[in-house]
């Protein structure tokens, strides 16, 4: 697949998702309150998109991941938040 073919297939979809991301940030920032670990992680992940490194999807996923290896003492919930609560920007 050439770059032009990739753009033909995916540009409009990616454009739509980009505007959705922008609208999401506008919506959150209009809402009163403070950023939490999810939004801090999200903003950090966005920085990865403007870098020149080739594995941007992997970099975003790593930014949103628990990087530790120590097991939890107990699982008190079943769900996941989508970002690591201890994330520090």
């Amino acid at each position: 697949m050439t770059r032009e073919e990739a753009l033909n297939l995916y540009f409009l979809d990616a454009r739509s998702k980009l505007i959705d991301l922008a609208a999401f940030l506008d919506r959150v920032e209009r809402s009163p309150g403070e950023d939490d670990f999810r939004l801090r992680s999200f903003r950090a992940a966005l920085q990865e998109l403007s870098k020149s490194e080739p594995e941007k999807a992997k970099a975003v996923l790593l930014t949103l991941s628990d990087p530790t290896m120590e097991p939890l003492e107990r699982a008190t919930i079943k769900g996941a938040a989508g970002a690591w609560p201890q994330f520090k920007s």
Partner: protein
Amino acid sequence: MAAIQELMRYIEPHAHMVSRVTDDYLAMTTAGCQAVCEPAFWAGFDRGSAEGFRDYFSLLTEHEPKRAANFRLPHFCWLCINPKESEDTKLADEVLAIIPDFINRPNVLGIGEIGLNKNSRNEISVLEKHVDLARRLNQLILVHTPHLEDKLKGTRLIIDILKNQKQIDPGRVLIDHVEEHTAPLVLEAGFWAGITLYPQSKCTPPRAIDMVERYGSDRLWLNCACDWGASDPLAVPKTALEMRKRGHSDDAIDFLIYRNPCRFLRQSPVFTLS
């Protein structure tokens, strides 16, 4: 004859059909599904006793194959207690004890989907017991990796646990729900990897094909993992169409969605297609 040869065929290697309506069997068969494989999973609520699992394993080995057979679709399954219910180690031990009662039933492929959810010590203990059971019974293993922020850590822990069991052949283990940050870890360790196609989490068809193009399709399969949540039982054939849009050949598509899952699953003597 040429038109017949161009019809798509695929294996759905991971679908929780207990959660799906009969129309889904019809749709999958119409789309070219040749067999469906159903891992044991969390029912959306914690079961109160091992007897609840005995009923569930009966459903997976008796009722669901009959429902699929109405569409001439072979149905296979995997048995375990899911990591979401592994925090209760007494219940887990009781469920592990009844698995041998079912393991030789004619549609049982192995032990799965075992793994981790929140990466707790109890989940790890129950995972290790499942792996040991699979070793003793010489069964294939299907592994679930955690969701979202827990996936990277869980995948690393799972690989360490499996590698510590020297008698486990990585070629007989599939680690599922990989994404861009975990697929290389799984494949470089010699395991098979599964990509799950979900509309909101896990992986989209374009990302799945990106991974196929980057890492090769040799030890990869695609699955829909359809259940009671947001999921699409036709995600695999839809991804095949996406591959076709990108110019992948019919042979490459057939390899990824039919011959490859057959190659892994045929390591179980149970997996035969007429």
